[in-house]
């Protein structure tokens, strides 16, 4: 409490003393993302330009990854205008290549961009991921490309399945830092249009039933994730009464009310085939 108060007081002082225009406030909020809070994970360079990618863990893992990146010009402070950015991760498999869901590309201020990539599989000796970023700098197209390492996450946070001849990818976005008590849960749901293109699936219905298998209990008052048009994610509330290993049992129903995947828990069914895992 005390610290919060100090922050609020400090913020108010900063606002009133340091600046007078509301624009400045916006900038303060925008630049609240500082790359110093993240770990440099990958650097790519081409023709006097280099691009640094930061993540919170310092590595790429299966599941949802939030990337922060910035393009720099060697020996120059000002970069010029950046436009037409396209981000394309590709899994290079022997027989066929494929991509994965990419969403939420935006500038977060100070020339820093953010994008989310949901890798559905890890790279291995034979098949590796590569990441390609195309962009126009002062009207000139540059292509950054590099092979990247995607590690297997310890717990299941992404799942792919085929139903009615459609391939779906469903993944856990939040909570990325779970806490005891009330958590916001965000889930991404995409379908594969072709090997290289994925589209957000809107307005499906989900149920959420978190369980602790080693204690055989769940948690109360969760809210099923529902589609949020603004973010393109499904948003709900996940309650975890204690730390430890949780299984989030889910079901997915399409807009025609047909069950796509998963089972509701009963005395016989103690885990859904559609689930995520959280351990903290």
């Amino acid at each position: 409490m005390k610290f919060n108060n100090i922050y609020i007081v400090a913020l108010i002082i900063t606002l009133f003393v340091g600046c007078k225009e509301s624009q400045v406030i916006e900038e303060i909020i925008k630049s609240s993302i500082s790359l110093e809070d993240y770990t440099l994970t990958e650097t790519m360079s081409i023709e006097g330009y280099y691009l640094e990618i930061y993540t919170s863990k310092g590595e790429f893992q299966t599941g949802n990854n939030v990337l922060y990146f910035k393009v720099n010009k060697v020996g120059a402070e000002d970069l010029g205008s950046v436009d037409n950015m396209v981000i394309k991760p590709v899994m290079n498999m022997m027989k066929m290549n494929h991509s994965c869901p990419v969403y939420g590309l935006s500038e977060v201020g100070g020339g820093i961009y953010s994008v989310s990539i949901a890798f559905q599989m890890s790279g291995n000796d034979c098949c590796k991921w590569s990441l390609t970023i195309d962009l126009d700098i002062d009207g000139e197209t540059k292509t950054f490309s590099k092979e990247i390492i995607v590690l297997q996450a310890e717990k299941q946070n992404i799942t792919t399945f085929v139903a009615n001849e459609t391939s779906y990818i469903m993944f856990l976005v939040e909570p990325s830092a779970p806490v005891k008590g009330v958590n916001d849960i965000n889930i991404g749901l995409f379908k594969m249009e072709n090997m290289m293109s994925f589209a957000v699936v809107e307005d499906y219905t989900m149920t959420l039933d978190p369980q602790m298998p080693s204690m055989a209990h769940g948690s109360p008052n969760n809210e099923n994730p529902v589609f949020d048009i603004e973010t393109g994610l499904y948003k709900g509330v996940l309650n975890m009464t204690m730390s430890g290993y949780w299984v989030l049992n889910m079901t997915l129903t399409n807009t025609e009310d047909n069950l796509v995947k998963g089972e509701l828990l009963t005395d016989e069914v103690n885990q859904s085939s559609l689930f995520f895992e959280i351990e903290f």
Partner: protein
Amino acid sequence: MRMITKITVILLLVNTMFSQQKDSLKVNKLQEIVVLGKKANKQKKHTSIEAYMETSTKVNMIRRGNYAWEMSLNSMTSQRINTTIDGMQIFPACTDKMDPVTSYVEVVNMDELELNSGQKATEYGNVIGGGVNMKLKKPSYFGDGLKIDNYINYKSNSNYRSVATNIKYSLNDFFVRVNGVYKKTDNYKSGSGEEILYSQFQKTNIFLQFGYMFDENNKVEINYISDVARDVGYPSLPMDVSIAKADILSVSYFLKGEDTFFDSIETKIYANKIHHIMDDTQRPIVDIRMDMPGYSDTYGFYSKIKINRKRHKFLINTNSYYNKSLATMTMYPEDINEKDMFMFTWPDIRTFQAGVYISDNWDVNNNISLDLSLRNSLVKNNVNSEEGFNSLVIFDKNANKTRYLYLNSTSVGVLEQKENHSNYISFSYGERAPSVSEAYCFYLFNSYDGYDYIGNTNLKKEKSVDIQYKYSLKLKKYNLVFEASRFYIMDYIVGFIDENIDAMTISANGVRVYDNINFVNIYNFSLVQKLALNRFIAFDLSASYHKGIDNNDNNLPLISPFTYNMGLEISYKKTVTKIECLGNTTQNKYSSHFGENKTASYSVLNLNTSFKINTNYQVKLGIDNVLDKQYSTFSDWNNLERKGIDLYVKIKLIL
């Protein structure tokens, strides 16, 4: 009501029968004093505070094992009663009520226990049911030099042994006391001869006291108690205790007034820390291994001013305390690769209370005296753990992180004093704040009803209106005290079953969330009689009856059925022999909703003899439960069986 009328009629008859006889009667009002030390010439009867408490007809002890019994006063337990040590607030650290405050002190530390009913107990804090103030021994500046008392006790049933040493050193202005007690016992056997597993315990208690008298009017006193219990078994519960540790410190200053507006001022500052660790490592089969540590730290002060003016005796007590209660639970999954499961069962609750108590004892005339008391206090609760608070929000989006409550208490009593009898009646209104568990607990398993309990931060204050009546008759050879009380408690706090919530504890029946119910009624009646036939033979008989029902006529749990205790004492020369028979009738009014079942009636026979060889050497021999009866009472948690036949010997040796 019919019963009250009958009893009143009987009393009036008794009254007229004996009214010719004359005897002085001590004004005692509702306070009941259980004497442990100084005035007790006879050797101490019991070895624990709890056993002494039980001698009051208003008190029942709830047993979860052979150690740390929980007091029920006027049919109400811990959250509705106030337990203080010489005015010090001290709060248990165990979420499962395994460490009532009375378990952290010893008989040898105490002079007496002051039991007050209802609003008469609000001097140190707002309360509903009443309170017990355990009065520590006082320094005595007699210039006696060094005195050492030793006590040795042995009980056969559980191989209980204890030694105690009291060392006193006094000059005319300086006093030091060092008391040490060590107790250890193995498992006891019930009347059926069955060994009650996990009923062992051992404990060490050290009491240090320093007193210094600057002059007749200025005195200072420092008291320190260290109490450590280890390896305490709780046969009625799924877990035991590996260590329960208390450090209790206070410094007091006594000022007597001469030609001042006050007669005396007593000021005390204090601090106490309790650390309580539950343990399941001794149990071979458990659903899941867990650790449940609890911590309770309290800091406070009080300042008591006494003013005597003509026929008035005023007392003003200003007091305040700050308590920190924190308890956590870590569960260890069978799969060692999984992370431990952790949660806050008491999410670091900080309670601050400040209040003023004012009372006046007014002798209106030689027969009538009035007593009036008022207490107002402010209570602030704050959840200090962000994580813990975030967990409470799961159940209530509008949970209160910080809450202030203002508590009131008012009481008026009238005493009519006649030559050999007296009538006392009092009317009171009081309020209490929800306890830490009621407001903030998180999945606390209650093995009595088999439910996990969840706190509710939006509980209303509990309010009580009570009427108490006491009739005392004191004749040369016959004494009688009859007491009756009725508590009408509004917004009574109790756990409600919530079927939408999964139990956390693996074998639990479900979840209960604390909430207020409209009202309950609690009735208590007790009668104590003593008849001394001659110098050699005396009889005593006490009986009590209690009833508790809620607004839907459901019985409340842990309410005593009709209880009796009959004794015959024969004194001859230096030998005193006592035969005692005590028992309950069948408990028909039980609360199955809260996990109770019908408890059969019982009666047991105790026998003891004490010899005073000389003033420095006393021996007491006795047999409890002479007939080796197998029984359990309404207050034995999960029908825990009581001790079977138990032979004991107690030796007191003064050096």
